[in-house]
């Protein structure tokens, strides 16, 4: 409950920031992409509340905003964690058992690929080749690279981000 309330106050504050940012774009339909990028920088993701503000400010439909947000993989509809975990599923990693590493990550974090933990600490994504095939399978957490991963190493590594 406490967490949820904190989340709401944070969002309310960030929405005010977004509104301020939007002032300089009022009525500029063509600024949609730029505005969404700036909004995501402020909030971290683009919930419907942000999309509504953008639609109102730029005088476009919410539907158009949502269509744009879901088109570009850069935009997130859901909050992202403080630590973004990317588990490589490229060919080399895959043949070396990356799927099992990913399954263990999902199990340890209690979330599925694409989701974020409730405490907003971790988000988990699968990605394609990161160019470190010699170290396969590879997991990247923010800027840290972990090579030669096994499912059993997962809990150990996550401890580094307590």
């Amino acid at each position, binding site marked *: 409950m406490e967490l949820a309330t904190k989340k709401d106050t944070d969002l309310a504050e960030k929405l005010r920031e977004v509104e301020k940012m939007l002032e300089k774009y009022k009525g500029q339909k063509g600024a949609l992409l730029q505005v969404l990028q700036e909004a995501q920088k402020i909030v971290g993701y683009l919930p419907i509340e942000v999309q509504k503000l953008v639609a109102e400010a730029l005088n476009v439909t919410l*539907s158009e905003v949502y269509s744009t947000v*879901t088109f570009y993989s850069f935009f997130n509809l859901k909050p992202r964690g403080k630590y973004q975990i990317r588990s490589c599923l490229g060919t080399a990693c895959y043949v070396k058992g990356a799927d099992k590493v990913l399954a263990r990550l999902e199990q340890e974090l209690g979330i599925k690929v694409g989701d974020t933990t409730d405490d907003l600490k971790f988000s988990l994504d699968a990605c394609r080749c990161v160019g470190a095939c010699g170290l396969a399978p590879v997991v990247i957490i923010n800027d840290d690279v972990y090579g030669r991963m096994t499912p059993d190493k997962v809990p150990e590594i996550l401890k580094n981000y307590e």
Partner: protein
Amino acid sequence: MEMVNLTIDGEKVQVPKGTTVLEAARKIGKKIPTLCFLKGINEIGACRMCVVEVKGARALQAACVYPVSEGMEVYTNTPAVREARKVTLELLLSDHNLECPTCVRNLNCELQKLAEELGIKSIRFTGEKHKAKYDDFSPSIVRDTSKCILCRRCVSTCHNVQGVGVISPNHRGFETMVAPVYDMSLAEVACVNCGQCILACPVGALKEKDDTDKVWQALQDPEKHVIVQIAPAVRVSLGEEFGLGRGAIVTKKIPAALRRLGFDRVFDTDFGADLTIMEEGHEFLERLEHGGKLPLITSCSPGWIKFCEHYYPEFLENLSTCKSPQQMFGAVAKTYYAQKMGIDPSKIFVVSIMPCTAKKYECQRPEMRSSGYQDVDAVLTTREIARMLKEAGINLAAMPDEEFDEPLGISTGAGAIFGATGGVMEAALRTVYEVVTGKELENIEFTGVRGVEGIKEAVVEINGMKIKVAVAHGLANARKLLDRVKNKEAEYHFIEIMACPGGCVGGGGQPILSADERFDVDYRAIRGNAIYEVDRKMPLRKSHENPAVQQLYKEFLGKPLSEKSHELLHTHYTPRPRYPEAE
């Protein structure tokens, strides 16, 4: 005008600069196949069905968006062109729900027709199909994305023609789906149920919510007294479904057909329209004389009403409190008519045949139960009643002329013109003028409010007072007009707004024309002209002269705006959110 010379398949053509290859080809009788193209509405060159070879161009070009230029050589029928079109079409078909014989658009489907015209005999590609959604939560419109070909004609219509914009292509690539935000149902977003998207759809991905079963059941039930009303615009469109040509007038064939289908009485919404004019005309005068909220805005179009509630709630007090003709009819049928005939209103089943999908929503509104029952039990579109008649083996075209039943089938030309844009305004002016002046109108045709122009204005002098009126049809035009009023750039006493372009003749429940036919034919204007012809041929052309309406006031309601009238014939409106709540 600067002219451009080019050749198409070796044939010389001269067309104005700016013409597309598609238009130039049509000029010499060459039909280039199209699918995503809808003239004036969706010209985006997305589907690649219309590709042609242009000499010197790097790749095949989309004729629908490719402008002509001097000396251009175009080839529309080369092996490369034919193969490209076939591959594209087969790819579309490979991801399409091919339930053609049971599809509502069977034999009226542009995809099906193209497959036939391009000689597709098999589909070379097999593979995964996109994850589809069937959304039938809206009382008016059903979405079946298993049939969607992502042409975006509905999207352009919803955004640009109607200014509503609640559907878009969401996600990307193979996952792309035309849907409301967060893939919600149309029922959860600020859709106004106008059904213009259905008219734009080349396939069966958008259709009306089918209520024919409800009506078949009622017709079967010996306990039920089943009565039917037909809207003004249906009499100039239903014939189209039976091969009678665009805008054929079938007013007198309809009673014959509907009687043979089993309805106990066949009545006319034009009666309800005359009644609406009596109430709304007096409401206008009341507001004018006693400083009420002006401009008064008409309330017959349920798509417009819901639009106003979602997008322009600041105008709700301007809306006439009059129910629409359909709902006035229903309320009168289950009270006055029930009493007069000695029938228990719970046994009366009222069916409406409407050019409209939004009427399906309107009849379910909680305010529309002033008889103590749901005033109108089922609404069928023009398309649905055509299907029922065909199923019953009744050929409308071969029906004899018959009359509507009394008393709710008696009407005037003023009621009939409700079916065309400007008609409600004209009907109201005919009555208001005579009520105020006590004099007979010399010329009852107010042509200034007629026609296909998006926004029309006129000034009418009544007893020395200049009454300023405006008419808008198509909700994007309504937006323009309302914004003008809001920003005090224009001032009016009386405004008519219809959700659909052309008014009800262009309603979302009307027969569907292909993009090909719409290229050359302004079907709304044709049906609209037919409506005015209906009016011209009526012996009575002013609502206050309708003897059945006069009798209704004498025996039951008292006078316009009486307490009883307010109870049965008037309603109220609710502001609604523009956006859905967060997921």
